[in-house]
């Protein structure tokens, strides 16, 4: 993307600066800027840009590694296959469900946690430290912990809540456990993002509101939330896109059995188990589009300020 933008940009600015030529210093600065950014830009484009184009190409082929002789160009047939498959839509539904439910819970819990971290009068360091544990811990490790906690016989939670059944093999309870694992792991991240927003709420404003007789709840909804709105939206955007990628927890907890596959899990299964590169690539492209749509809705629909977008304005 920037590969196309970079060459045109200098032309534009040359035209803009028009008659007075760029000073030597200015040009050196530009060169240095490009020089410094180039390695990062090249790596990022090489490892994402080209594969994306390549996966579009793969998605137009019948390409199953088990039938190497049958590789051929099939146009949009793979898209028809995937988009008419009930498994795809089931996985899509599961992904949306997990995303919406877990992000909603995280928002509430994360806000509570942010308030605690921000206003705790004792043990603030302690709270912040332990909060970072779920954030930092390897997702797979946490997922194993939840799996063993809910396994029959083995687990303390299974004994407590479901002594007879096997919660990880029932669809509803398995989904609930996946959401639990997601929420546990990512609430702290949400809380940290929100805490940063909370720091922007002016103390005088709260004191003034309190003087005017506003209750704690009113102060929260009328003062804190409006000021924090940009931070909340950014946090939601980050977490929504992140939750949409859910894979690790499902892989460990259910491996997608009993209709608990997410789109990522389904892609993995078709690619690695089925070795069907055509269908796998098709799903890759579709997921990419879905994520782009979500990001677009957030940015255009809710007016989420993309982090970094104010960057040039600031300088």
């Amino acid at each position, binding site marked *: *993307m920037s590969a196309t933008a*970079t060459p045109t*940009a200098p032309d534009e600015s040359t035209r803009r600066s028009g008659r007075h030529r760029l000073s030597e210093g200015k040009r050196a*600065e*530009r060169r*240095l*800027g*490009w020089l*410094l*950014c180039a*390695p*990062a830009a090249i790596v*990022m484009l090489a*490892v*994402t840009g080209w594969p994306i184009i*390549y*996966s579009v190409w793969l998605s137009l082929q019948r390409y199953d590694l088990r039938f190497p002789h049958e590789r051929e160009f099939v146009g949009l047939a793979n898209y028809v296959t995937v988009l008419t498959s009930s498994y795809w839509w089931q996985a899509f539904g599961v992904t949306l469900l997990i995303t919406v439910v877990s992000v909603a819970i995280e928002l509430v819990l994360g806000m509570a946690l942010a308030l*605690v971290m921000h*206003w*705790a*009068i*004792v*043990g603030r360091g*302690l709270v*912040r430290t*332990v*909060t970072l*544990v*779920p954030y*930092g811990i*390897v*997702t*797979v*490790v946490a997922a*194993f*912990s939840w799996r*063993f*906690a809910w396994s029959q*016989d*083995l687990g*303390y939670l299974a004994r407590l809540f479901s002594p007879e059944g096997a919660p990880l093999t029932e669809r509803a309870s398995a989904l609930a456990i996946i959401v639990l694992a997601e929420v*546990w792991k990512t609430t702290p991240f949400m809380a*940290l*993002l929100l805490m*940063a927003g909370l720091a922007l709420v002016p103390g005088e404003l709260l004191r003034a509101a309190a003087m005017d007789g506003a209750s704690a709840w009113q102060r929260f909804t009328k003062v804190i939330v409006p000021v924090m709105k940009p*931070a909340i939206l*950014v946090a939601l955007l*980050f977490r929504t896109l992140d939750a949409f990628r859910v894979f690790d927890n499902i*892989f460990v907890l259910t491996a997608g059995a009993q209709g608990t596959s997410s789109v990522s899990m389904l892609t993995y299964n078709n690619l690695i188990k089925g070795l069907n*590169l055509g269908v*796998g690539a098709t*799903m890759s492209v579709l997921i*990419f589009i879905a*994520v782009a749509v979500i990001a677009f809705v957030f940015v255009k629909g809710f007016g989420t300020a*993309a*982090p*970094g*977008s104010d*960057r*040039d304005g600031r300088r």
Partner: protein
Amino acid sequence: MALTGGADTTARKAKWWFVNAVVVVYALVPVLWIASLSFKTKETINDGNFVPREWTLENYRAIFGTSEFVRALVNSIGIALIATAIAVVLGTMAAYAIARLDFPGKRALVGVSLLIAMFPQVSLVSPLFEMERGLGLFDTWPGLILPYITFALPLAIYTLSAFFREIPWELEKAAKMDGATPAQAFLKVIAPLAAPGVFTTAILVFIFCWNDFLFAISLTSTERSRTVPAALSFFTGSSQFEDPTGTICAAAVVITVPIILFVLFFQRRIVAGLTSGAVKG
């Protein structure tokens, strides 16, 4: 901040300690559970007790006795360190340019890295699997390091440019006026100011690489490059009829230790890094 008076502070403090306790329980119970399982003996692992009734180090002895785990640990450490080093160097260069220099294409770069930060990683698995097979990168260290660098770079660039913007660059000019060479000015004045930000970024990037599972399980196939998170799900029990629960838990605890150390020693930095990079940036 929300202080109102001194008379009821004890009661308030008690209330806050209670809230803190809830948070501590929330954050630590799953970690303690997996640690507890890792210390249980084969006979008691199925007892469902939160605290082991009989303690043993057998599971740790078992995993460190197999190349399966030791190799995976070496892979995890090596791959994460190399990826972190490269990502931080490249990220520092780019972030410096973004924070300090004015050049066309800057917005595009910021936009691209933002896109990548939100990118569904699974979309890359199919093409990378096929490309790495062709290039001979499949199941090698570089085969994992490359995607890790890519996805770590946006994180590195955001966090670092936020830090760099806080640095009082006038000091550099002042030092030069006082007769210091540019190199001296950089080493003596700017580097010490920038170091904490770079260090924090390195921790965040390392945690990110350490954590990855999707690439690790899709782009590796043997002990040669399989990292611990991926290796965990391939553990086999010591006999045909035994689940490898104890050894999985022991390995899980081992790879949690560095995270706990980071959190304990660098809590302030990590919080600062996460909040500044993501929101202010």
